[in-house]
């Protein structure tokens, strides 16, 4: 990677065109988003990073002026909890992390310790560093485990005590991590848990033994203080063992019967969305059955990423990324 910063040069489009060289959409994340109407959204793809300022109606190439010698896949995204104020957004790529402190208008490349790993997951904690005052950030990588930054993403250090599998595929931070300092890492062979803000890890016993854990997600918490161990709901999607949920004292139980790898799980409001294989499924809290979440007009299209903002749960809209590189605002089947 080269050329540390770039200024944004927008161009308007209704939908980012399907392009055989664009590559699949790997990740979508945003802040204050009402899909199709407002909010800043980012999408990482096989060939770069896209940015929308109108809730995903139109997209621009966020890295167009970096003059990168070749397309740079962006596989992970995360935004600061105080994004509206600090504009901090991070994007994970092979060999490094892209960082923006102005809501994605300009970017800098943060090099990681050599040999540079592939960044597969990014997450942000509510814990502020005592030294810098910045949020603590986590980066999951292939082969280098979990990296931690207390300097707003400018410097990263590996903290892998007890992390016996350094191929990290996903991360999930407890909604109450300011109190419980808890986060989870899904790896190629299982799940590890940290209860001290990522400084050490312990293996989580899983009922199905070893399997790659492709996604983790906490259910949104009701308002008011709570503690992870008292009422936890953590979802884990696996490569060959389907979807599981951890509920405190009850332990792990399987949800649904998914034969395909569970690539993403998004609990929101009273529904849960699951991306299994290239199909998106939905289940309401009041029902047991899983249904196809996409309208019939999307039949045959392969889904690779989905962003369903909590703020718009009632309208059942989501931003859906596809293997062909396109992104659409979708009203889900309910």
């Amino acid at each position, binding site marked *: 990677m080269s050329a540390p910063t770039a200024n944004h040069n927008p161009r308007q489009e209704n939908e980012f065109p399907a392009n055989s060289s664009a590559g699949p959409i790997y990740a979508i994340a945003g802040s204050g988003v009402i899909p199709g109407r407002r909010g800043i959204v980012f999408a990482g793809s096989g060939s770069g990073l896209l940015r929308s300022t109108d809730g995903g109606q139109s997209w621009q190439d966020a890295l167009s002026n970096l003059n990168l010698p070749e397309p740079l896949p962006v596989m992970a995204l995360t935004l600061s909890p105080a994004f509206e104020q600090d504009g901090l957004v991070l994007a994970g790529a092979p060999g490094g992390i892209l960082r923006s402190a102005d809501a994605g208008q300009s970017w800098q490349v943060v090099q990681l310790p050599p*040999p540079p790993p592939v960044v597969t997951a990014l997450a942000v904690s509510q814990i502020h560093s005592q030294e810098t005052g910045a949020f603590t950030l986590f980066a999951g990588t292939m082969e280098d485990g979990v990296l931690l930054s207390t300097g707003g993403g400018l410097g990263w250090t590996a903290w892998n005590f007890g992390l016996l599998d350094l191929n990290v595929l996903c991360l999930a931070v407890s909604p109450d991590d300011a109190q419980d300092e808890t986060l989870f890492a899904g790896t190629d*062979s299982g799940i590890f848990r940290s209860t001290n803000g990522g*400084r*050490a890890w312990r293996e989580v016993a899983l009922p199905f033994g070893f399997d790659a854990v492709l996604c983790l997600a906490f259910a949104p918490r009701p308002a008011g203080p709570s503690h992870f161990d008292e009422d936890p709901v953590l979802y884990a999607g696996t490569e060959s063992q389907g979807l599981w949920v951890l509920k405190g004292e009850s332990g792990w139980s399987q949800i649904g019967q998914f034969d395909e790898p569970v690539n993403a799980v998004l609990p929101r409001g009273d529904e849960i969305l699951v991306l299994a294989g290239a199909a998106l499924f939905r289940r309401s809290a009041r029902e047991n059955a899983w249904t196809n979440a996409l309208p019939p007009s999307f039949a045959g299209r392969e889904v690779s990423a989905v962003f369903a903002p909590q703020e718009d749960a009632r309208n059942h809209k989501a931003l859906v990324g596809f293997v062909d590189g396109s992104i659409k605002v979708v009203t889900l089947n309910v």
Partner: protein
Amino acid sequence: MWAGIDRLVRLISPTLGPLPRIVAIEAVGSRTAKPELLDSGGTIAQRVIQLPDRGEDVGAMILRQVLDELQESEGDGTATAAVMFGVIFDRGRRYLTAGGNPIRLRRYLEEGMKLILSELDRQRLQLQGKEQLSRLARAICFDDEMAKMAGEIFDIIGAYGRLEVRRGSTLGLEREYVEGMYWNGGFRSREMANADHGLRANLENAAVLITDLDIDSPEQLVPVLQTVIDEGIQQVLLVSNTLSERAMGLLLARPNREKVFVVAVKTPGLTNTARQEAIEDLAVLTGGRALTKAAGDRLEAVRAQDFGRARRAWADSRSFGLSGGRGNPRALRQHIAGLRQMLHGANGDDRKRLLERLGQLIGGSAILYVGGSSPTAVEARTQLAKRTAEAMRGAIREGIAPGGGTALLNCRPALRRRLADHSADDDARAAYAILLAAVEAPFRVLAANAGFDPNRLLFELEAAGNHCVFDALTGRILNLREAGIYDSLAVVKAAVRGAVGGATLGLTAGAVVHRRNPPEQPVT
């Protein structure tokens, strides 16, 4: 024997509790050297080499042996064990003098011990978080700075993580965390260093050849280098038992170094067993195949798939290490589970080695640097740090129990019930009565050492209920959660086992055989 035991117990019991008294021990062999000031029961016992009276000496040495083993295995609990030992032996010998049966007494004492251990297990709590770890450390070492540091360290490295305690260069304590695993034994030649600063070799995406073979001739290395070049590997960590100068010359020759950068280190371990274990661990970590003498392996037959891989490897003049080993993580977890299983039945050196191996495999280690105002102070604090670390490990693995002697006091109801159940059996009643006194003794001594009336406190504590503890520092009886006063359950149980086991052994000794002293002169 009793007089000797009593002398040792009286020497050690003032050190029990958070307000201990110091025992000054005259330096051996020097009239001008300062005395040692000690507050650790086990260390004090170690300084007692021999008592003048041979009968007393036997008793003292029985107790000392118990305390030595406890200090070695748990790092703590020696004063508790000594106090309990003293009570059991004293009351036991009086009962036997009055006509009791030693074998039956021993049997009931051992049954009672099992009851106490099971009651202690019922009080088990799990340690959670840095704060609780620090509080426990404080109860072990009574050193605020060390307790805080120990809490942080063990919150990170856990029960099995590797902790090295070294002498520091400042007055206080410092710690350092090292990512990855490392072993003793540095690179074989300074010319292998490649770092910009310092004498160190750094490797990236290294292939690791793991052997305990002796490399005597350069010809042995030719197939290895050829395989490496054919595979496009540019950096190699070569682990071997020996490496001749000629073979090293081949590795350091400029044309070869330009093609492949090789750092050679010695197979870790001083014994064959230790070397086997080290290369087994390296193989699992890196996904390589260990080439061993025992299997008849030869370097000439090395294949590409025999090499392990690591994201990073390093070596300096004293040690070598690696991080990001590319072995199969599932195989690594199974290997670790196997070692943990072996740990259950291990003791002594075997246990130490297993703990070291587990610590290395966890993926990181901590170094605690201990400083002080004088070499003596540093040495004392270093020993304290090591004992504290050992006790902390046991606590994390096995849990904690109410501290300050309270966990033992909470065993009294079960003992009383057992005493009532055996009202017709004199030996059984004697045994349970002895154990009732024994479980009270540590609390009594601790309270007296802190300047309080044990009888009054026992009464108040019993009325408060078994969720309360006595805080000797404030003189108050507090709710356990509020006070945060805990002991390592492993330490308390070991103290009970040591005290009961050692005392019953002494009580059932029918005779004592002394060596002739001085030995007979040879006939010429």
